[in-house]
């Protein structure tokens, strides 16, 4: 057992790239679910909107990097929010759940389809759009930074990620304590009451869906930049559940909930991953029980199990208040 590798990996989970991507997506989901009570199970598609918005604009249509960023953060999530929200936001909560999952599946099928290879790169995805971003990096790609955890390019992604994350936390804090945010909470608590006070609940829910989607798109875009490719497999349906576990673990309806949840989730996942991997490599775990490829599947099982346990035993997570939980008062 290589203790320092285990420690490094766990630390990377706690503060590294994955934490940044998923904390951002979970902040978006917090606005959807934690504050407005929307059951969005398609956050992965909003993440994909950011990733593909950027990469398709830059590679497929040969536009400027910053135009791509604008499309990925502002335009694509807007189209998506309207498409998903228009049919479902007037209906009961579980219809939004079904439709958003269906949207994630539509995305997977369409983007992987060879017939659209010209635009989406099908299952290989799109790469070669992140150069302008790394050109700005002050870090030397060859050396390691931050307690030797990250190499130069990673460090640049993570540093920008932390900055964006801090800004996202601050913005969402400002938003939810504004009158607008109080209307969202009112809709979560009792939509009829909010409506009877003259608030257009449908319109507020649509705004919340879009705004949360923008944060999700930011996370997805950073993920595409960090991996230097926009691949369908990075935004499949199951990715959404990582965001959900991060949010509920930290505490939905709390500003710092998604951040703490994402950090803990990735620390736990990376820890189990590296321990199992070392166990398999050093034959502490026999091949008949677990092979190298099966290690990668364990994290999905953990996420599924986490979702079950959190939803049934601690829906308020670490920070949340039980009486303020959309999971409980419907």
């Amino acid at each position: 057992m290589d203790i320092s590798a285990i420690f490094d990996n766990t630390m990377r989970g706690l503060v590294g790239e994955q934490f940044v991507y998923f904390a951002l997506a979970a902040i978006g989901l917090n606005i959807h679910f934690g504050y407005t009570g929307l059951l969005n199970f398609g956050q992965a598609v909003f993440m994909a909107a950011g990733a593909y918005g950027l990469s398709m604009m830059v590679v497929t249509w040969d536009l400027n990097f910053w135009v791509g960023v604008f499309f990925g953060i502002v335009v694509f999530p807007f189209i998506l929010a309207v498409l998903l929200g228009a049919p479902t936001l007037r209906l009961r909560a579980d219809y939004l759940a079904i439709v958003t999952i269906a949207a994630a599946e539509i995305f997977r099928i369409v983007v992987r389809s060879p017939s659209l290879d010209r635009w989406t790169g099908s299952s290989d995805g799109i790469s070669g759009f992140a150069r302008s971003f790394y050109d700005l990096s002050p870090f030397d790609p060859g050396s390691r930074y931050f307690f030797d955890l990250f190499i130069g390019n990673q460090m640049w992604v993570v540093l920008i990620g932390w900055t964006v994350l801090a800004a996202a936390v601050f913005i969402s804090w400002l938003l939810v304590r504004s009158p607008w945010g109080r209307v969202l909470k009112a809709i979560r608590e009792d939509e009829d009451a909010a409506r009877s006070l003259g608030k257009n609940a449908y319109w507020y829910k649509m705004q919340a869906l879009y705004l949360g989607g923008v944060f999700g798109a930011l996370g997805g875009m950073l993920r595409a930049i960090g991996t230097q490719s926009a691949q369908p497999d990075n935004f499949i349906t199951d990715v959404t559940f990582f965001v959900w576990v991060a949010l509920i673990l930290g505490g939905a309806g709390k500003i710092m909930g998604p951040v703490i949840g994402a950090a803990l989730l990735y620390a736990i996942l990376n820890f189990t991953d590296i321990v199992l991997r070392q166990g398999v490599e050093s034959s502490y775990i026999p091949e008949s029980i677990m092979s190298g490829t099966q290690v990668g599947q364990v994290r999905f099982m953990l996420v599924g199990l986490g979702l079950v346990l959190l939803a049934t035993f601690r829906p308020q997570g670490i920070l949340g208040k039980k009486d303020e939980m959309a999971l409980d008062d419907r």
Partner: protein
Amino acid sequence: MPSTTRPRVFSDGRPAITQIVTARLKHLTKLMLAALAVVMAFFVVASPAAAELVAQEDAEVTEVTGTLRAKDADGEDIFIEGVTFVVSDGSGAEVGQGVTDVEGVWSVQLPGEGLYTVLLDDSTLPEGVDLRNPDKNPLEVDVNEGASRTTLFPLGEAEVRESTSIEIVQLTVDGIKLGLIIGMAAIGLSLIYGTTGLTNFAHGEMVTFGAMMAFLFSVTGVNGFTVGLVFATILALVVCGIAGWLFNLLVWAPLRRRGASLISALVASLGFSILFRYIMLYQFGGRAKFYTDYQIQSRVGFFGWFSIAPKDMWIMGISLVVMIGVALALQRTRAGKAMRAVADNRDLAESSGIDVELVIRWVWISGGALAGLGGILLGLTESIGWDVGFRILLLMFAGVTLGGLGSAYGALVGSLIVGIFIQVSTLVIPNDMKNVGALVMLMLILLIRPQGLLGRSERIG
């Protein structure tokens, strides 16, 4: 939101009052317990057999080898088993034969370097699979000493037989088949929603579970014993029914008693969906599998309008019989009436003496078995994979939403329409995107008529 009108079993788990209708069902429950013990014992001995075989060969042998694969309708690789390759040397004398294994891999060891010809015996190719370049068969290969020479025999897509069928009729027939399978699997989904209010996202995993169990009993074998697919199906259905019963007993009944909200139950069911799905991937591997029975059949033509394989006729026949049986049972038997009564109005049903928890238990048992049967039939007509259930789940939702959530007949009608729509839409959109049409339809239904064709508008809130 008029929340009072929706079924709220999850938020008031009162104990039952009387059990007039359901005494007979209780006796059956005891039988199930006994069967459970037997099947569980079966499982304990069965699990090592399911482990994947890993062949390790890195010795320096001279050989020709290859992997035979084709793309299925979703663009995923499927591996073709049981195809014979004949390798001859320069003089035309046969050196050896190789047959592709479950993962499409074949190899033939060679006596030494030289020029060889590899012939794919196209009579061993399964129905509907053809070589993309028939003129490159046999293939000449130059092999070096000690080298493993890989050959490539690209396969074309399964051909659409336009010459022997009218395409739209053929697609409609295929669509009816798909719709019947979706509908059968979706009855449970709809009834569980109707009786308990739970939107069960883990229902798709029951479909996969059924297909996998039949595969385990008929192909992998339990302690080396395999049974024919028909008997394996019956065994698998028993296991699925028990699984549904256990799932309710261990998870959902306690949650209802604790008064958990519908939304936390929904989130938990999603968690179970992903947990079970990856357990199945872990246990059975990621490659598509096929039942060995009834795999290669020639299609029977009908008036030159469409053609259909005998197994597909059986699939449609079985689904139709099962569906009519379910409909009659719901309409005529006491248990079926009790199920509809609970789905209609739980409180009223309970106060008129129906043991609601017992009815829910039987909904889970029958829903699980029907989902499993759907999975087996789907596996028989397409392929068995670890995520087929999740993919078909969304088609089930489309069917159930179209027909009207909570109504059993709605599930049947909606699923048939969805199945036909999916197949016929391939006239316009690429085959690998055919499911998109159904999912878009799901959104449109919600926009235009959210209560579905046969549903009641007060359910949708």
